[in-house]
């Protein structure tokens, strides 16, 4: 029999192991999410991240090694973003009709996200580097990373903060907006996309097709607006 260490070093050197692990972890996370009848705190992204993070720590595997396998999954984010055209097209008439409430909700939501994130972190003693990494965290990851670089932040830290923002939004949105008694799926989805980008949009698609379509638009619009707002607000904390 071959030495197990040799097999491990073979697996470690290729993308097969961690690509498979990513899909299996997600399958487990999604099963738990479904078994819980879609309870928001059993968020499949969060569960998969916990499973995989535990595995990486337990095996002493560096993130770079993991990402060599996981990059194939990561790559599909681009085509998936393009695919948001599908629900958008199906709801085009309703989207055009809701242009005014969307524009005002975008301005209010986007500004609230940046100002409150920087204000709270500044009060709790965050340095300028962290503030710059934090400022674009409600925008979708590729945009946020670009903004963070321009502002003097740490792009890989921003990617993590963006994901955490999305997970927080995805977990909190349903109980919170139910408690507020908001019943318009358009506004619920749109605000989620603005504040919690793609992860929030994925959650909105699970909850209601209308919310999903409007979340996709919110995400796209805030990708543009954050690029304008984040540098202006960050100036206040310099």
């Amino acid at each position, binding site marked *: 029999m071959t030495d197990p260490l040799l097999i491990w070093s073979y697996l470690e050197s290729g993308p097969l192991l961690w690509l498979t692990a990513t899909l299996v972890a997600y399958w487990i996370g999604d099963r738990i999410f479904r078994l819980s009848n879609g309870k928001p705190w059993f968020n499949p992204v969060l569960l998969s991240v916990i499973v995989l993070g535990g595995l990486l720590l337990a095996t002493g595997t560096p*993130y770079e090694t993991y990402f060599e396998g996981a990059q194939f999954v990561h790559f599909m984010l681009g085509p998936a973003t393009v695919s948001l*055209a599908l629900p958008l097209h199906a709801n085009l008439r309703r989207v055009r009709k809701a242009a005014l409430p969307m524009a005002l909700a975008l301005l209010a939501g986007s500004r609230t996200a940046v100002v409150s994130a920087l204000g709270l972190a500044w009060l709790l003693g965050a340095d300028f580097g962290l503030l710059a990494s934090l400022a674009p965290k409600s925008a979708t990851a590729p*945009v946020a990373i670009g903004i963070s670089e321009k502002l003097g932040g740490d792009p890989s830290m921003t990617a993590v903060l963006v994901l955490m923002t999305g997970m927080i939004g995805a977990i909190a949105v349903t109980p919170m907006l139910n408690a507020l008694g908001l019943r318009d799926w358009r506004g619920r989805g749109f605000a989620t996309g603005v504040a919690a980008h793609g992860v929030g949009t994925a959650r909105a698609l699970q909850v209601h097709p209308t919310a999903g379509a409007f979340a996709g638009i919110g995400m796209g619009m805030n990708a543009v607006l954050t690029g304008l707002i984040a540098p202006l607000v960050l100036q206040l904390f310099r």
Partner: protein
Amino acid sequence: MPAIVSGIIVLLLFQLCGEVVSRIFALPLPGPVLAMVALVIGMALSERLLALVRPVASFLLQNLSLLFVPVGVGAVARLSDLSAHALAIGVSLIGSTLLAICVGALTFEHVARLTGNIDEEDEA
């Protein structure tokens, strides 16, 4: 040619054009978002394009959460930075995200009600 392959080709070609245009004109919009807008226009113009893209796009959107897992695992690589500023990061992310969703959804609903902009198709 299998329908899935032509669907993937359409998505990738749109994304490719989006990335190129975004870089040529140094636009603040990322390539895939530009491509999304272009594809909506394309779908409105051509039923055939819509039919080509629909199976792959539905499949990707049904599994959208999966695609965020690799970046999410990156948190493990930054565990020491995150825990060094745990309080500031935790309070800031939770507070601002919840506040922004509430403010956005409340604004939308109030403006929609004030202007009589009611969604006829469904109500929660």
